[in-house]
């Protein structure tokens, strides 16, 4: 038998690795869900239910079967594309996720854009002007970003920019006038309103997303700027940079065409991680801004022992990490010839 072409082998290895990772992730989540001190039956029937009602639901959920058998049934359904229905609200989990994930995707994407656009230049300048006032400011910004509780910052942001100044929209994705005004195509209101050509909805949705996205962007910015500064400092002290300067190359070219070019690969990892963290959903941000995203969806489901919803959410988050990893690997190959 002829050996497999390298690209086929590579693809098969990647797919195999995805399958094993997902299976492991689901198994661990499943077991954690089952050993947690929350009773899914009680969550459904309530405290007042008679023993017979309780027993009927217990059997209905298949909780009388061994754990491994329950897990096997679940995996079998997932392979066939069925994530089951939410134990609590009886809706298909896939429908729920299709509703909440775009909200998170929209928020996280804007957030990471803010983080990249502001964080990278800030990190580069802080490294180039090491010890200067700009560096000190960048350090303070990052420190505050790392240490300030997000719910507090969120509430203060709401109070100042929404409550007092009235510059932005309040909690929720759109104002009450614009609820369900544009048809849902992607589930991302900014994009859907553009598709529909409805500028009023776009402006209103933007006014609602700008604050939570800036808040998440700030946390991304803190991480990205610190990492950029650190990577750049390492490059700027390298001999090739000194050589370039000695040869009379302009400072702009030294920084951006030499030093920065060499940190792109590391930055991709940092940005991918930052983006993945935002895509997991920031529970507290979602709570404060009444943003119906995947973070609060999974948390609510977990606290209610709605395991189908938890596992469905876990699959999505797991896939995000895997896909962003694959995407990072591909970019490595684009930016770093040694990785090809």
């Amino acid at each position, binding site marked *: 038998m002829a050996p497999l072409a390298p690209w086929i082998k590579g693809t098969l290895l990647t797919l195999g690795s995805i399958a094993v990772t997902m299976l492991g992730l689901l198994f661990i989540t499943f077991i954690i869900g089952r050993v947690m*001190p*929350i*009773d899914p039956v*009680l969550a*459904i*029937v*309530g*405290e*007042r*239910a*008679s*023993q*017979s*009602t309780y027993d*009927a639901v217990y059997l209905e959920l298949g909780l009388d079967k061994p754990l491994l058998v329950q897990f096997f049934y679940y995996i079998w359904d997932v392979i066939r594309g069925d994530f089951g229905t*939410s134990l*609590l*609200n*009886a*809706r298909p989990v896939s429908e*729920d996720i299709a*509703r909440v994930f775009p909200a998170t995707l929209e928020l996280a994407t804007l957030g990471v854009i803010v983080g990249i656009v502001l964080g990278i230049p800030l990190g580069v300048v802080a490294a180039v002007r090491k010890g200067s006032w700009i560096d000190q400011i960048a350090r303070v910004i990052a420190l505050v970003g790392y240490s300030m*509780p997000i*719910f*507090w910052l969120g*509430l*203060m942001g*709401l*109070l*100042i920019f*929404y*409550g*007092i*100044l*009235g510059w932005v929209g*309040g*909690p*929720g994705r759109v*104002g*009450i*006038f614009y*609820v*369900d005004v544009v048809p849902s195509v992607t589930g991302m209101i900014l994009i859907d309103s553009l598709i529909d050509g409805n500028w009023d909805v776009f402006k209103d949705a933007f006014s609602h997303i700008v604050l939570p996205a800036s808040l998440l962007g700030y946390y991304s910015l803190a991480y990205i700027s610190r990492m950029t500064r650190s990577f750049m400092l390492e490059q700027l002290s390298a001999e090739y940079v000194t050589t370039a300067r000695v040869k009379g190359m302009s400072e702009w070219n030294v920084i951006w065409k030499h030093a920065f070019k060499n940190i792109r690969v590391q930055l991709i990892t940092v940005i991918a991680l930052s983006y993945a963290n935002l895509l997991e959903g920031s529970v*507290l941000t979602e*709570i*404060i*801004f*009444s943003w*119906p995203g995947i973070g*609060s*969806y999974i948390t*609510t489901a977990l606290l209610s022992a709605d395991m189908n919803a938890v596992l469905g959410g876990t699959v999505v988050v797991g896939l995000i990490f895997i896909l962003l990893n694959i995407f990072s690997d591909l970019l490595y190959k684009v930016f770093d010839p040694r990785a090809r």
Partner: protein
Amino acid sequence: MNALNRLLTGAAISVAVSLSSFAAVAETPANMLVIAHRIDDVTTVDPAESFEFAGSDISRNVYSRLVNLDPNDLEAGYKPDLAESWEVSEDGMTITFTMREGVTFHSGNPVRAEDAAFSLQRAVILNKTPAFILTQFGFTPENATETIRADGNKLMITTDKRYATSFVLNCLTATIGAIVDKETVMANEADGDMGNTWLKTNSAGSGPYKLDSWKPNESVTLTSNPDYYGGAPALERVIVRHVLESASQRLLLERGDIDIARNLNPEDIAGATDADGVKVVDELKGRLMYLALNQKHPELSKPEVRQAFKYLIDYQGMRDSFLKGQYTIHQNFLPATYLGASDENPFSYNIEKAKELLAAAGVENLEVEIGVREAQERIEIGQSFQNAAAQAGIKVNITVGTAKQILARYRARELDVYLGAWGPDYPDPQTNAGTFAYNPDNSDEANATGLLAWRNSWDTGGLTGKVAEAVTEGDRDNRVQMYLDIQAEFRETSPFVIMFQQIEQTAMRDNVTDFSTGQAVTSAAYWQVTK
């Protein structure tokens, strides 16, 4: 978010608000009512299954019942709704309802006695959690079609024995008494589920509002029913937005982006009270906070010890501090505003009296475990009690756990003391009398986990018979007196230390009138609201 964080945030917001004024206040549309509320407890909107607070709010506005409570006159009790009148047979076991003519469902189908019979039969046959409200009258999945039947414009229901008419009719005002559109529901039946799967997320009612959409943990949208037999509601649309965080609800309210905020914590209520254009309305709810002593415990079962515990609660101290505005002192199992409720609160915080009672019982060095679910107010009540008990020489070990951990042990009669809350299921005194003071079989084998008296291994003695008599008493005044007597005996002899009744504080824009959360007896109603 923990209490400290809440406090810090509340304080920060209060300071900031006091230093500045809000931007120009917006206004919700004149024909729309916008409410911020925690609606993550809604698991279904099928009235045969719905048993949570926010779900009951939806049902109350979407479905009419045979008899109903008027949100503007809750004290009057049940009144005719889809049933124009009723008659009780001589033996007191059959009630014949005459249906109101000319009423239609949202689908346009006429409301018939057949729909009413189907709705009640369906609730019994599906046997979901709230089914006990109907099955306690002897209806079973097997006999439902014979005991609940329609004949032309009449609906007849026949109970297994004579009950007080007020008891039966009060139960029919509960969510499970909602009348659904048989044709629409059965058109959506799947696998013999009597439309349960479809009705979990859709509606088929004839009430003042139609359910437009329910997005779990996001929003509920209702549109007025212009053909509602009682007249179209003043507000054409009601939007209930899920806003979890109290501070966010307050900001939305003070900015005028919502009309009503239903879940403000005490700090935010205090802040909102001073805000321009906002008013705070208090309503007594049915939830009671209580301690229960397991009568299997040799010391806790002594009458003097049961009495002593009732003097170890700092009722006023707690009411005026961390429970301020949220609870009022109440020491009876029927919540205030219920038929037969008593306002006698004879116990007060008295360590010396408790010590005397303990000494009389010969109890020394008592050590007990108290189970508390992980809710801030309950933990604080537990700590206050622990402190008071220590002064009387009782060591109290607090075990904090999740609902599963604590309730499982409580239902298995394993806890020495349980600190918990209880809310009535339907607006009749039997709902609480039948669980606090009724326990026909106290043996472990009875496994009557639904009865609080059984959970605490308390043989209620003569009270069980008295409760059974009270549900059959036809005369309303006599019935009231019976419950007053039962509660007087219960206060003195029971192992329950009932402490507080909940107050719901709702903040709203000051142009909103007639909004009712339903007090202790029912759910929120929107159709009478104007602004």
